[in-house]
């Protein structure tokens, strides 16, 4: 088989039994791999949404048909039901673990049940072996990876949890290849609840290419396109993702002190430009990636990876902190302990506002840079104020009687773009299948950065159509599985060319977009079954009612109601956001009730 390995294995951690999960050619054509195939298989395995931390829940590690081939293809997707949001969730991570999983002979690994004692899994030669993790349970993610690589060889790639995942913190991350994280949605807690410390993958199988000549020619073209593009060929390399700090701040939508302002006065001090001239040691890159947006940094006390834009914001402007070293060290701590930096920082910001208004007497204050790492550690070990922070912002704010102070959608904290500054981004947050996430449809690209075309960020006209299109393209990229930053340099036709040369599957651009639409619709069906309704496709009242008084996004609110009906119509969903029978038929999802 070209592209795919043609093998997905299910392991039950309770019984130790493993078996091959049959996947038809038709299924691969309709869902590709990664996120799409993962969500499809998950829906079939867990048709009734289970308690995310119960043994009945499944967690899938998925590679895609392009994994291990073209540039940026070392990535993988983890799919499960999120303990943070209760939605279907997939979380993406870079590094080389995805490529290692395929070299080990698998397109995907499905894990069910709960081990009696801590275990880890080793994948090689298409087989999965369960081993005792007693000696590594309790270790942080860096020591865990080191210990397992000593056993399995330096070439092995390890995806693991740290103490936060073991302690089932609702936003625990999965770390691999040192500091790459499947961060969002708390799937590290799902591993922890299964007593699963890590998955190790190693092997030497190559992904077969259907059209080697076409592939070579296309790869050269791709190299040139990425190199020539000013974003992928220059900006991301030199300045990393934090180049966005000054850009978003200049647009008056850099969320400051829990989204109460859109301009952070100390933005320069935490910008990508500043990182480049202070903490930066060198750039770092995932498997086969010429872009290399990663930053290896050093502070006075430590060194590590990051901070990326989202993290700079979450521990910086969001908390009124401008001490770059403190931000970087909080980032290192999140990586070591296994926590999502966005939810961690956002939850601390929510806590600061709760304390300021007297709803919670825990002593968290704006700008208190010196305590960031301590709060991160307390959260990972669920102790002191960390016991409350470990709830995430939605549960924390509700517990202290001020639910409106959590800046989240469906329980997931929204990231570093205030939706009042970009109406399309607002709609994307509200309708994302995993809650407040910018990656489901990165509308900042057209609304702020002007790629591939420039759109008026304050207009709602045409936004429902474009959000749906961006969501569909994102689902395709997540299912192939590639890095989303490639989208700055290539469009849908390059994606279908990649699929064709690698797998031989020639479905064309339109059909590929339909695959994206099918995946988004399938995720919608799952969330409906999990109890979500139109009422959940919304944003916190702050964005709908409160205006900024300064900055270039002042006097604006989110106008969701102007867009939501149209968005449902574009999607072929009824006014309650439920896919119609005609839509299900068109997408071949007639068995949609079952998922």
């Amino acid at each position, binding site marked *: 088989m070209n592209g795919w390995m043609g093998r997905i294995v299910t392991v039950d951690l309770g019984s130790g039994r493993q078996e091959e999960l049959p996947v038809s050619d038709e299924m691969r054509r309709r869902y590709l791999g990664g996120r799409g195939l993962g969500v499809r298989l998950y829906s079939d395995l867990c048709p009734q949404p289970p308690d995310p931390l119960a043994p009945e829940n499944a967690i899938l590690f998925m590679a895609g048909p392009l994994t291990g081939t073209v540039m940026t293809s070392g990535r993988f997707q983890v799919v499960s039901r999120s303990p943070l949001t209760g939605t279907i969730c997939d979380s993406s991570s870079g590094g080389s673990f995805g490529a290692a999983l395929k070299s080990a002979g698998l397109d995907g690994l499905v894990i069910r049940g709960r081990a009696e004692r801590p275990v880890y899994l080793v994948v090689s030669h298409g087989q999965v072996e369960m081993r005792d993790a007693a000696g590594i349970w309790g270790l942080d993610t860096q020591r865990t990876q080191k210990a397992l690589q000593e056993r399995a060889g330096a070439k092995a790639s390890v995806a693991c949890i740290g103490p936060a995942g073991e302690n089932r913190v609702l936003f625990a991350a999965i770390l691999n290849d040192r500091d790459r994280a499947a961060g969002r949605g708390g799937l590290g807690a799902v591993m922890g609840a299964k007593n699963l410390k890590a998955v190790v993958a190693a092997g030497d199988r190559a992904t077969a290419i259907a059209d080697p000549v076409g592939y070579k020619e296309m790869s050269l073209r791709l190299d040139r396109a990425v190199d020539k593009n000013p974003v992928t060929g220059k900006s991301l390399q030199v300045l990393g993702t934090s180049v966005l700090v000054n850009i978003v701040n*200049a647009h008056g939508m850099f969320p400051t002190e829990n989204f109460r302002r859109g301009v952070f006065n100390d933005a320069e001090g935490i910008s*990508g430009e500043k990182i480049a001239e202070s903490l930066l040691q060198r750039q770092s890159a995932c498997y086969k990636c010429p872009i290399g947006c990663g930053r290896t940094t050093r502070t006075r006390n430590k060194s590590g990876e990051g901070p990326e834009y989202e993290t700079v914001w979450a521990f910086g402007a969001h908390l009124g902190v401008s001490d770059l070293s403190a931000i970087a060290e909080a980032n290192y701590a999140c990586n070591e302990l296994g926590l999502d930096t966005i939810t961690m920082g956002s939850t601390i910001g929510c806590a600061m506002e709760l304390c300021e208004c007297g709803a919670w007497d825990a002593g968290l204050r704006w700008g208190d840079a010196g305590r960031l790492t301590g709060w991160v550690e307390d959260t990972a070990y669920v102790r002191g104020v960390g016991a409350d922070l470990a709830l995430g912002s939605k549960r924390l704010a509700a517990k202290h009687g001020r639910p409106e102070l959590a800046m989240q959608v469906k329980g997931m904290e929204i990231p570093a773009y205030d939706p009042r500054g970009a109406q399309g981004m607002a709609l994307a947050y509200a309708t994302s299948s995993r809650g407040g996430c910018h990656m489901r449809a990165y509308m900042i690209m057209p609304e702020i950065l002007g*790629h591939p075309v420039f759109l008026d960020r304050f207009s709602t006209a045409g936004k429902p159509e474009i959000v749906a299109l961006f969501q569909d393209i994102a689902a395709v990229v997540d299912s192939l599985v590639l890095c989303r930053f490639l989208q700055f340099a290539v469009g849908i036709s390059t994606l279908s060319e990649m699929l064709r040369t690698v797998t031989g599957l020639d479905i064309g651009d339109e059909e590929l977009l339909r695959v994206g639409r099918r995946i988004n619709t399938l995720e919608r069906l799952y969330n409906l079954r999990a109890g979500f309704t139109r009422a959940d496709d919304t944003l916190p009242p702050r964005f709908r009612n409160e205006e900024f008084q300064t900055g270039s996004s002042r006097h604006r609110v989110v106008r969701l109601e102007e867009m939501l009906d149209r968005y449902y119509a574009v999607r072929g969903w009824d006014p309650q956001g439920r896919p119609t029978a005609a839509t299900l038929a068109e997408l071949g999802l007639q068995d949609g009730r079952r998922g």
Partner: protein
Amino acid sequence: MAAAVEIRFYALLRRRLERRRLAVDGDGLSVLDLLSLAEEQAGRPFLDELLDRGRGLLSGTMILVNGENIRLKQGLATRVHSGDVVDLFSPAGGG
């Protein structure tokens, strides 16, 4: 030069010019003329980071006048006035 137009450089432009800002006596000029004047004054070329050969905006270039993208105004023909702040970003991205 309190009444000048203030130009602020970011990202790769800042690295190239090794400066963060420049005050230009550009009251009443179009953005295009302002930038040409700024290039002269800065003593180093930088417009190639922002404009294409036909002197249109490169895809992805962000030029803000008082926080508003000139693409939403009259593009490079947008007039600037003393006291205005012009932010220049060469094409950039992240996530």
